[in-house]
């Protein structure tokens, strides 16, 4: 895939283009509204939703507080079950480990289960540079890969595409990756899914190496869990001889029983189903069932930085359900690409700047990609207070300075002084009201604010003057 988020413009610039793309906005509006309505119904079926949400939050907080212990336990359980555990401090190291493992098998192609962690580290591009072809097998990821596009949603990466666009991509691009699209392919979802089935089956049957992520890892038993719908995950997890799973360290849960909470909250929050069609759980390797060789690559890549932030660390509770994207008024209009990361939407706005730091223009802009309406917090199945983290990160961005923030600081300082001096304030108000006919509609230097807003007109009389006249 040639697409990359590197060098993306800041959120306001990228969002400005996106909101003027009529097809994109229509596709997004349709998709997000459909799923948010369904989700509300699926959640309402469980009377104890609030208790499940609280339990999920507590399990994750407990895990993070004792993550060192749980990871060591996980490592010994996976090893005892026949797997091999690797540790990767950053993306580069993870990619190097995976490429080395694939090369050791003598293979030059791999099939992949949709995985946010491997997207995050740019694994496909790294493998390509080593002469290894990585085939995405999730339908939406396939659409993105064939279209040389970028994912725009955590759960439905091709949410920005409609059926007509997908048909065109299949017709034009399938042939160069393997089995071509059937002749006379229509744009009905059933026919498009069938085309993907035929195209990918030849790859599944010959695959010797599979690569996945995982939704959960159970420290107590060494069990890994993948939630999916299509069966492509099952294909990649069971048919190849070697399985390599790249998983963020925060995906750990302490006990087998803990899964009972997330098996109830994740499907309902993400696809709005009581349960997703397929969930696979494996513990190391099993005799004559599935891959004989299993490697687990534990990925840090900024997670320990996030963990060190006492407000921001709650973002590591995220189970990647994407409910926050589907309710977010900003995501719905700006689209997923504007966030410049594999993690778009509200969770991306707090996760990406923590994983990558706030030095770049895009990462410094992400904490502002929100109206702070709080809908994301309300739907989050592990109760991440996203608005709280956004405000906290804004403070950090402001502290690091920069042009806009110097102006803002100067303005706040001036306001502080004038509010401490009532006589000066009264004189200022009087002068401002008297000269209001002369005020420019767009004061110089405030363009970033006034570009999309009207400056309110000053009243003819200040509130204090009005009070003096009418109430005293």
């Amino acid at each position, binding site marked *: 895939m040639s697409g990359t988020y590197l060098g993306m413009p800041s959120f306001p610039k990228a969002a400005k283009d996106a909101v003027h793309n009529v097809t994109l906005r229509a596709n997004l509006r349709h998709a997000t509204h459909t799923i948010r309505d369904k989700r509300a119904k699926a959640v309402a079926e469980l009377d104890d939703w609030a208790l499940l949400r609280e339990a999920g939050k507590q399990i994750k907080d407990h895990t993070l507080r004792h993550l060192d212990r749980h990871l060591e336990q996980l490592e010994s359980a996976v090893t005892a079950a026949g797997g091999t555990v690797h540790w990767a401090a950053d993306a580069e190291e993870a990619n190097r480990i995976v490429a080395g493992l694939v090369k050791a098998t003598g293979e030059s192609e791999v099939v992949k289960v949709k995985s946010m962690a491997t997207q995050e580290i740019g694994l496909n591009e790294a493998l390509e540079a080593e002469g290894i072809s990585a085939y995405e097998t999730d339908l939406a990821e396939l659409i993105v890969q064939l279209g040389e596009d970028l994912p725009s949603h955590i759960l*439905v990466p091709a949410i920005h595409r409609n059926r007509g666009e997908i048909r065109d991509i299949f017709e034009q691009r399938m042939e160069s990756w393997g089995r071509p699209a059937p002749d006379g392919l229509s744009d009905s979802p*059933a026919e*498009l899914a069938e085309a993907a089935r035929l195209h990918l089956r030849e790859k599944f*049957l010959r695959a010797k190496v599979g690569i996945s992520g995982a939704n959960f890892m159970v420290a107590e038993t060494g069990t890994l869990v993948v939630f999916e719908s299509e069966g492509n995950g099952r294909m990649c997890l069971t048919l190849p001889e070697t399985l390599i799973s790249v998983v963020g360290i925060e995906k750990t849960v302490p006990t087998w029983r803990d899964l009972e909470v997330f098996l109830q909250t994740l499907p309902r929050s993400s696809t709005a189903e009581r349960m997703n069609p397929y969930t696979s*759980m494996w*513990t190391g390797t099993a005799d004559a069932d*599935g891959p004989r060789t299993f490697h687990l690559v534990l990925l840090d890549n900024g997670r320990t930085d996030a963990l060190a932030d006492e407000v921001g660390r709650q973002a590591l509770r995220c189970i990647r359900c994407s409910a926050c994207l589907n309710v977010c008024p900003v995501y719905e209009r700006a689209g997923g690409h504007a966030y410049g990361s594999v993690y778009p939407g509200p969770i991306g706005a707090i996760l990406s700047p923590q994983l990558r730091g706030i030095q770049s223009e895009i990462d410094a802009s992400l904490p502002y990609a929100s109206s702070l309406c709080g809908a994301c917090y309300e739907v989050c199945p592990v109760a991440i207070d996203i608005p709280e983290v956004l405000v906290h990160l804004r403070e950090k961005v402001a502290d690091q300075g920069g042009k806009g923030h110097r102006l803002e600081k100067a303005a706040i300082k001036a306001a502080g002084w004038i509010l401490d001096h009532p006589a000066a304030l009264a004189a200022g108000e009087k002068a401002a009201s008297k000269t209001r006919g002369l005020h420019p509609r767009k004061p110089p230097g405030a363009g970033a604010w006034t570009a999309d807003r009207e400056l309110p007109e000053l009243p003819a009389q200040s509130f204090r003057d009005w009070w003096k006249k009418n109430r005293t």
Partner: protein
Amino acid sequence: MSTETGSRDRILARIRAAVADAPDAPEAARDYLDSHTPDDPAAILDLLHENLADYRAIVHRASEAELPALVAQLLADRGARSVAVPDGLPAAWLAAADADQRTDDGPLSPYELDAVDAVVTGCALAIAETGTIVLDAGPGQGRRALTLVPDLHICVVRTPDQVVASVPQAMPRLDPTRPLTWISGPSATSDIELDRVEGVHGPRTLEVVLLQD
């Protein structure tokens, strides 16, 4: 290898430093419900039936005596000429079927499995509230690929002993050291405009037989 060992120690040290001053986080409270369904086997069975059907599994009920004829009929209706037979499947279940029976003792290669039309299995248990069947690769279920590659999966659930009401009731009955597959309806995708389409890579048809004593 030495860099990797270095990374392991470095990551663990970074974690310890990151949470050194964090308040203690107690074990999670588990005051959520154990089940959302009245404790009545008939109601639980009906709920399982309803939820399986809601996600487009085709549900049948049969007695032990009726089962062979029903399985034979289901295979014939779909034109299945060959059927994969996992180790330990009761021979009676396929006694009336005409389809060519393919045992997995080779074992069957992925290409051989792809040429098989159907598979008949039992299960470890079924969960009513979510409409889910869980396979644990035990006797009569076979390895995971058997229920994945053929296009038709016929799954027999013994009622009431293999049926639980809820996910929390299922967990203690499952052995995490076995490979587990949770199946809720046939393969499906919602990736195109969030329209649900059944049948992508797994079996496009899932027939569930609720076997009654």
